[in-house]
């Protein structure tokens, strides 16, 4: 570890992995509720399990991003963090706020929770992914601003690299677009319109900048390729991302009452969204092939390459499948969307956070890389989780195609629930793949506790 203050990343990473486990547990519960409708009912209704599953994902990825930034920025800026104490304080604020919110979801009826937390003063609750109570939302803003202050001050006093500038741009964008979660107009069209400014401009906009910066950082470290070359690719990737991603927002405006031209703008530009992901894949493999050193941490390199491939497949290819307006007319809101969502989040964001944890955690624990034994186990977990996710995606895609056919295209269309019965076999298989994913995650956690000969001194 080059700078002492990088150590604040460690609790963030630990919390991220802990919440990741929670997310998968609730995913498995929901997966079972798809086929055994009254499983855990009424203690844990499906809608609550779903809310916990998706909110935990967002929160643990945010923990991961913040930890990654706290690790990366001092090293890039070649200076200690502006205030490690502030970083640790915010860690506890965010963890406690996050935990209380989840407890609130689980043990208080949602309407009561809304009443308790001041939703009457400013109504922000009840929208998908933005279900958090007002207090939690304000907490997120405070934590994000303090975090950005800390990171920005560190960069201001140190070296300014292209990679850390891109990261900062992404993180500021993340905070700024979250502010739209406080805007909740009565007009349903406007409501949806701006809701996407949080949801879409996060995952198909500014988060991709964070993804690109983190990947570039790890690639410089593990390959030793010239910074100049890596930065050049990063510039190309983020420009393509912003152009396709921002105008590509239009692919959510097809059927919500927005002007018709969005069907064209959205189709054309979102159809090009796979390009930056493709560039990222080429970039990752190219840099690893040109490597000037053999970094002892093979697992981190594997995660980095995996991020490139899976992000392209999940976000790029599976996104393209249903992004054109004439296709989306039939597939909108079906299991095809769920398939895309799963692989895209895993391939792009889960994997990039795990890449950074894989690279940074051994160093934070005082060694350049884990023992070969621990790395082999970590690589096993990589393949178990990744293959499981491929299966989850394939089964959901099959379910989605069948669903669209039976419910929307067929001459004698079935109702929603009747269709669900018809595709239950795929849901069972998805649940089995989910169990495999959980096993992979357990192996991943075990790999942190495997002792062995140290590979290299830190």
């Amino acid at each position: 570890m080059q700078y002492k203050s990088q150590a604040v990343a460690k609790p963030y990473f630990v919390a991220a992995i802990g919440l990741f486990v929670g997310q998968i547990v609730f995913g498995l519960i929901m997966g079972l509720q798809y086929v055994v409708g009254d499983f855990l009912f009424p203690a844990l209704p499906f809608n609550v399990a779903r809310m916990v599953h998706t909110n935990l994902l967002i929160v643990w990825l945010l923990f991961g991003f913040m930890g990654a930034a706290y690790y990366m920025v001092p090293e890039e800026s070649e200076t200690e963090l502006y205030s490690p104490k502030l970083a640790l304080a915010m860690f506890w604020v965010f963890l406690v706020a996050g935990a209380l919110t989840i407890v609130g979801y689980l043990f208080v009826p949602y309407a009561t929770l809304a009443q308790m937390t001041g939703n009457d003063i400013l109504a922000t609750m009840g929208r998908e992914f933005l279900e958090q109570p007002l207090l939690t939302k304000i907490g997120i803003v405070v934590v994000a601003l303090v975090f950005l202050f800390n990171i920005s001050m560190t960069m201001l006093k140190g070296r300014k690299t292209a990679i850390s500038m891109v990261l900062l741009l992404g993180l500021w964008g993340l905070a700024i677009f979250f502010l739209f979660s406080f805007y909740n107009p009565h007009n349903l069209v406007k409501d949806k319109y701006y809701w996407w400014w949080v949801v879409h401009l996060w995952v198909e906009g500014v988060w991709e900048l964070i993804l690109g910066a983190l990947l570039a950082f790890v690639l410089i470290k593990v390959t030793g390729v010239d910074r100049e070359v890596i930065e050049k690719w990063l510039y190309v990737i983020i420009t393509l991302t912003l152009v396709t991603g921002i105008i590509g927002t239009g692919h959510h405006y097809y059927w919500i009452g927005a002007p018709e031209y969005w069907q064209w703008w959205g189709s054309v530009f979102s159809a090009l969204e796979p390009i930056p992901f493709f560039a990222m894949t080429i970039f990752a493999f190219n840099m690893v092939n040109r490597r000037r050193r053999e970094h002892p941490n093979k697992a981190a390199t594997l995660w980095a390459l995996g991020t490139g491939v899976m992000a392209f497949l999940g976000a790029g290819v599976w996104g393209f499948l249903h992004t054109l307006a004439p296709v989306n007319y039939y597939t909108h809101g079906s299991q095809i969307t769920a398939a895309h969502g799963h692989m895209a989040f895993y391939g792009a964001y889960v994997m990039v956070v795990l890449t950074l944890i894989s690279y940074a955690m051994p160093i934070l624990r005082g060694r350049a890389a884990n023992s070969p034994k621990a790395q082999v186990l970590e690589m096993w977990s990589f393949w178990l989780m990744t293959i499981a996710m491929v299966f989850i995606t394939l089964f959901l895609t099959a379910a989605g195609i069948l669903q669209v056919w039976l419910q929307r295209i067929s001459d004698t269309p079935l109702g929603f629930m009747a269709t669900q019965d018809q595709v239950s076999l795929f849901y069972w298989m998805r649940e089995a793949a989910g169990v495999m994913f959980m096993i992979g995650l357990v192996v991943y956690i075990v790999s942190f506790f495997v002792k062995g000969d140290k590979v290299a001194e830190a």
Partner: protein
Amino acid sequence: MRPPPALPRLRAMGHDTTLTADSTPRLSGDLAVWFFILAELLAFGVFFAAYAFARMRHRELFDAGQALLDRNTGALNTILLLSGSALVVRAVQGNQRGEGRRSARWMLGAMACGLLFVGLKASEYAAAFAAGISLSSSLFHMFYLSLTFFHFMHVILGLVVLAVLWQGLRQDRYRQDANPLESGAAYWHMVDLVWLILFPLVYVIH
């Protein structure tokens, strides 16, 4: 953490991406910029095809809309972009002969062409908006405004690139390494190249 010593064999491979190999084929400009150019071409290509297939189903509407456009201004704009491209080529040629500083004026000429293009296009937009035309007026106008405006933004970005190159030429910065100059030039030619299809497609063919 200390990096292990690099392997000599791999160091030789770890050269830049700019394809400056000794073998004859040589890309004028940086590989990363060319990747970007290909992505741009793909974006315009998709948009052009969408226009053509939308027109297939609404022929009268498209022909009527097109008849309102000023074809002469379109042709003049084409000539401006072609001239700008040729002037950029002259600047690159001058730099190759080691006359970087002197060839800055060619770059200035190219920028003048670009600025005239922007001015003409802006007056075209002003007339269209004065006539109450918007993205929602008709399918043709949606395409006309979207396609030309998307291109318009590229011209503006291209002008920024040219301004940077002009500054660089005046300081004779590309004598040793013409890569930035050639990369920027390639981008400007791409802006020209897509217009060469856009002009007949939107303004002329009916």
